[in-house]
């Protein structure tokens, strides 16, 4: 499985927190913040570490970040915290997965693009669920419906984005 699809899959645990546009926007904002901070912390450490150590440090930092995020939410935005439930804590998973996928293709601009893409997908999902839900389609409000919607969105995205056809030639040149 390539690292990008792994990253897209990291949206799956967050599906529960995209019932309304407001919820989705909050989660997208928090993940943007946490992902950037996590990357900022990891950048100076990465050259000093390798293999398992990188993963360990990345998990530790992600856990710390989401703990602080959750505490801050409880202190300043308790209502948001009550609405989102456990989902802010799951952002740690996204941080770790992003870190993993970065080992292969580096570059700040590309990484930022990826993160913004993730947040946009989440926002779109929230918008679709709110619209469909208010139109009377109950499935869209349930979590399984969100998973189906995510699949549809990705399918449309893949259809629209015209990639150069993969070479049919086998083996290396």
């Amino acid at each position, binding site marked *: 499985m390539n690292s990008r699809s792994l990253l897209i899959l990291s949206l799956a645990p967050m599906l529960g927190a995209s019932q309304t546009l407001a919820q989705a926007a909050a989660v997208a904002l928090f993940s943007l913040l946490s992902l950037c901070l996590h990357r900022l912390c990891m950048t100076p*450490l990465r050259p000093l570490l390798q293999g398992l150590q990188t993963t360990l440090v990345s998990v530790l930092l992600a856990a710390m970040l989401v703990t602080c995020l959750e*505490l801050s939410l*409880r202190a300043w935005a308790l209502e948001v915290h009550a609405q989102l439930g456990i989902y802010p804590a799951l952002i740690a998973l996204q941080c770790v997965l992003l870190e993993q996928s970065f080992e292969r293709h580096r570059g700040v601009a590309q990484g930022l693009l990826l993160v913004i893409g993730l947040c946009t997908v989440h926002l779109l999902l929230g918008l679709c669920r709110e619209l469909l839900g208010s139109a009377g389609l109950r499935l869209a409000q349930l979590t399984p419906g969100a998973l189906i919607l995510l699949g549809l969105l990705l399918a449309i995205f893949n259809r629209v984005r015209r990639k150069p056809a993969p070479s049919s030639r086998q083996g290396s040149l």
Partner: protein
Amino acid sequence: MTPRARAVLLVAAVACLAIGCAIGWAQLNAARISQAEVQLKARSLLSVLPAERYDNQPLQRPLVLPAPTLAHSTLLAGYRATLLGQPSAVVLHSRVQGYAGPLDLLIAIDSHGRLLATRVLQHQETPGLGGKLSEPGNTWLRGFEGRTLADTPDPAWALKRDAGQFDQLAGASVTSRAVIRAVHDALRYFDEHSHYLLGTGEHE
């Protein structure tokens, strides 16, 4: 120092730093968090009471409820609201078994045993069906407002399909029954203990 030992040391240092940061942040915010929790609780508890109904701080003096386990529900807390020194209303926090888990309701009853308002504090009902209860100003929940045990006799506290007086919330008959029973329980409890709850009887 071997590179391996250095890496282990670095990981340990990061671990200590991360844990330290988290604990420090928790300590720093502890007071603010507990304050925010109290405020949120106050806001949600008092949202069932119209502001002109009370001038005290009902939450500061929770009532000790005798025999809080009722026929279908359990009372978790009770608060007395007073206006100009006279008891004006009682807010009961009731927990009943819903469709998917416990359903917490706030039930406000005025001094004549008339239901003022009901509100869902927390629930695990199906979103879009039973979950609609938690929407502010839910019309089905507002259907209970103004009811008393005098104008709605005991057998009438049921769904129409169970020969009672109430419509059901579409697609959520279990949730609807739970709410009706909890409200009925609370009104009966109020009637049985009204002197104590209002602080007007000799039990005070």
